[in-house]
């Protein structure tokens, strides 16, 4: 791991813990961004942790950019020494794979895709060495995912799958980003899955859609009454494949205010996970099943 410090214009320091993704890099980025927050450095206006990097926005009229960067560097050692453990929750998210809405959209933007002749799922399956889309979908939902970043648009989670690196799925982003993506599309780019919280632009491959809203500015949805954004970094997600009938049933429950996501409180310990991924995941999913 090689930490790299750089500026984003005159108002941002960008810290890349590593140029490749790993949970180790994620935990250092999260710890260092927390230490920067706790340090209450005058002039800091925003701190945004990401997958393997983070960014600090500051007012250069209050603190000089080189001093801002130096203050962050001072905290790097302490961040690396911190425990890689989180008290968090595991959530079951229903997914309707190969749904009609993302299919319509991906056909509309085919000329921006690496393989205009197939679908995003066919392409993702092929380049990851799966026989067909069904086998790829199975790999996508059989093991849980870790929310390693919240952002892009309103509360969108980036998810990193909790499996050995050689089992991780990887796909490129669209050659040119789309100007449209259906709300609640389950997407994929690099090694990250995501849920598009709102309709809009997007560059990730599209695999399916969830009926479960994750952002509600009006805060009318029962489980978003306390805050309009559902996800936080460190949340764990288990996809549950559903068909059209289940999709429609859950949509109706959401509209009626009766839908309750399945959630269990769990602890995530990176060392324990690294020692026995299969066993650790089985325990996570057991906790979810008991919820």
């Amino acid at each position, binding site marked *: 791991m090689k930490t790299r410090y*750089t*500026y*984003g*214009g*005159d*108002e*941002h320091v*960008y810290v890349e813990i*590593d*140029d*490749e*993704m*790993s949970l180790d890099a994620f935990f250092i980025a999260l710890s260092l961004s927390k230490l920067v927050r706790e340090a209450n450095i005058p002039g800091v*206006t*925003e*701190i*945004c942790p*990401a*997958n*393997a*990097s*983070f*960014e600090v*926005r500051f007012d250069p*009229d209050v603190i000089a*950019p*080189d001093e801002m960067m130096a203050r962050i560097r001072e905290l790097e050692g302490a961040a690396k020494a911190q425990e890689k453990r989180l008290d968090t929750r595991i959530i079951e998210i229903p997914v309707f794979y190969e749904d009609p809405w993302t299919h319509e959209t991906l056909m509309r933007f085919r000329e921006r895709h690496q393989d205009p002749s197939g679908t995003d799922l066919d392409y993702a399956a092929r380049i990851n060495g799966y026989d067909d889309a069904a086998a790829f979908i199975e790999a996508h939902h059989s093991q849980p995912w870790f929310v390693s*970043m*919240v*952002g*892009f*648009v*309103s*509360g969108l989670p*980036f998810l*990193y799958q909790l499996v050995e*690196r050689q089992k*991780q799925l*990887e*796909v*490129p*982003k669209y*050659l*040119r*980003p789309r*100007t449209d993506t259906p709300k609640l599309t389950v997407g994929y*780019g*690099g*090694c*990250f899955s995501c849920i598009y*919280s*709102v*309709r*809009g*632009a997007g*560059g990730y491959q599209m695999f399916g859609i969830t009926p479960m809203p994750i*952002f509600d*500015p*009006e805060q009318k949805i029962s489980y978003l009454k306390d805050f309009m*954004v559902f996800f936080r970094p460190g949340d764990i997600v288990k996809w549950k494949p559903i068909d059209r009938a289940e999709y429609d049933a859950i949509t109706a429950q959401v509209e009626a205010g009766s839908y309750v996501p399945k959630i269990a409180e769990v602890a995530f310990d990176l060392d324990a996970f690294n020692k026995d991924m299969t066993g650790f995941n089985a325990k996570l999913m057991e906790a979810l099943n008991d919820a």
Partner: protein
Amino acid sequence: MTLEIVKPGLATTVQDLGRPGYFHLGIPEGGAMDRLALRAANMLVGNEDGAACLEAVFMGPEVKFGADMTVAVTGAELPVLLDGMPRNTWSSISVKAGQVLSFGFLKEGARIYIAVSGGIDTPPALGSRSTYAIGALGGFEGRPVAAGDVIPLGRGAGMPEGRIVPDALRRRPAKPAALRVLPGLYWHRLTEKSQAAFFEDDWTVAPEADRMGYRFRGGQAMEFVDRDQPFGAGSDPSNIVDGCYSYGSIQVPGGLEPIVLHRDAVSGGGYFTLGAVISADMDLIGQLQPNTPVKFMRVDMDQALAARKARKETIEQIRQALS
């Protein structure tokens, strides 16, 4: 106190100085694309600098006033008409209840700001009245205004007619427009040839230019320094492991067309960014029409900070000119 939208224009929204603090959740700071123009409009009508105004792009709305008040129009240049009679831009205008403000065709710039004494008084969302339409947040019901909307206004003392911002303090894009860029972020991903070409090439504003970002075309496709793509980034050399985007940062998907991320930009993603437009030039971008020729100019941090200071001084000069 209200004003009624008779005709909405193209994409007229309520904007103030934005909602910092939620970028880590993907909710952008938002707010006026041209903050200097918004501040000046508010100063002209006697508001706090950050009061909420209407921001209109390319085409003015038609609005009817529900009470007597002071109005000012700043930003882009276009004919301002009160009950059909010409009035000045960058100037305070006294209006009576029932009068109608309308606009002619755009002459220069891209966005106008309409301030009214007392400011627009829609309910703040996460501390700001700025409209973030993608997230259906803030502004008037989280969306651009529509014909028939009655917009609530605050109470303001108003100001005398004819206060004016001197011409020398109104910033206009040069021809070609010059945008100062501080290289950084993933600048090292580009070959030396592409680094040089970015500043030498002639660019124009593409039609895809909005509150999220301004796309540019006309320059050469970029070449990347050879490497094995890091795990998790995706195979295209313009891909990175998804990170945060800086305001003003310039991403180049596929190495083809640079996109400068603006007020409503996405907060992060997986395309590389080569650096960022300096804070002092962000307002200027909001005044660029599609097809405008643009040159990117390389600056260092000292130059960026000097430009930031100069911009602050301009704002203070406007304040003094109106005091």
